């Protein structure tokens, strides 16, 4: 730091002895914008550990036979800097082998929010000790997953499974046709609904602006996914027509201060519907990618 001959270099020392693998998935053609992603599953093949290695491990480290496997989404920004987002993390046993499934829906949702042309989907898989610390077990050294490309020989190669719905058939239709009455068969849409504040008794002499506003409402029904999908996600409720994006409403009210009236602005959240969508009760709302 104090030498005149060297420039200071800021850096980070990562003290973990985790093994890391970077998985690359070309996605552009696989998930067009007119499809809604329900779930993305990453399948990794855990290689069996040789018996001799297991026996040695059991003698040296009797306490734990598990390692923590973490999946992160890697985003390489335009300026070259990297950023990772935690997607899924779980413990796996060294005694197990075969396919392991990780829910990476959030990573694919993040990837979809990137500007075009989009980089491939990058998933970083790391295998770490179950617990940090020098006395922790070293089972993580025995956990191996089959890799992508020629090195893995194609056998047990990592797979990305995408479950999606065609929005043209399963999504909402935008704004309702004002000429057509809403019936049981109407597809989910946004209908105009005017709230007349001037006509509300309690708002008299209190709400000064606006005299009323277009709130909109979501009406109609949603097509349900085919049977096999419902079977795979039994925890999800039926798809319903709901307000998926809302906006606030500013109002000017009169408040009394020291016996005298004064005008004040307040913003009421979620008062106007901007967009209606079909969504299942229990389905996670995709997180917005932060800049």
């Amino acid at each position, binding site marked *: 730091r104090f030498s005149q001959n060297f420039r200071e270099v800021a850096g980070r020392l990562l003290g973990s002895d985790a093994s890391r693998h970077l998985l690359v998935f070309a996605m552009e053609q696989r998930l067009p914008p007119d499809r809604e992603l329900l779930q993305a599953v990453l399948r990794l093949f855990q290689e069996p550990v040789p018996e001799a290695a297991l026996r040695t491990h059991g003698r040296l480290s009797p306490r734990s036979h598990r390692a923590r496997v973490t999946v992160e989404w890697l985003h390489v920004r335009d300026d070259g800097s990297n950023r990772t987002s935690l997607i899924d993390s779980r413990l796996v046993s060294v005694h197990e082998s075969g396919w392991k499934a990780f829910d990476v829906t959030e990573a694919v949702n993040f990837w979809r929010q990137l500007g075009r042309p989009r980089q491939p989907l990058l998933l970083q898989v790391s295998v770490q000790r179950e617990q940090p610390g020098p006395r922790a077990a070293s089972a993580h050294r025995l956990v191996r997953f089959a890799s992508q490309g020629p090195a893995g020989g194609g056998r047990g190669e990592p797979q990305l499974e995408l479950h999606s719905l065609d929005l043209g058939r399963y999504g909402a239709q935008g704004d309702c046709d004002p000429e057509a009455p809403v019936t049981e068969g109407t597809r989910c849409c946004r209908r105009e609904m005017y709230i007349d504040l001037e006509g509300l008794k309690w708002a008299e002499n209190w709400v000064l602006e606006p005299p009323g506003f277009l709130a909109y409402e979501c009406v109609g029904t949603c097509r349900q996914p085919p049977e096999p999908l419902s079977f795979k996600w039994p925890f999800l409720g039926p798809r319903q027509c709901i307000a998926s*994006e809302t906006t606030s409403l500013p109002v*000017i009210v009169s408040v009394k201060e020291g016996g005298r*009236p004064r*005008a004040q*602005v307040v913003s009421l959240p979620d008062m106007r519907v901007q*967009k209606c969508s079909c969504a299942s009760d229990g389905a996670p709302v995709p997180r917005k990618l932060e800049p």
Partner: protein
Amino acid sequence: LTEEQILGSLLQQLHLSEVPALDQGDVGQLVIPAHVRAQYVALLQRSHGTHSRGK
């Protein structure tokens, strides 16, 4: 969106437990100052641009 929801939201934002008692005489002479109107218009414009994700 119901009338009760609008009233509930308004009371919550103003930290009130009930609708304030204001009569015509109170409000009749009230002029909305320019800075309050400007703040209202700015919020109105902003609300058209920013949407929040539904629950």
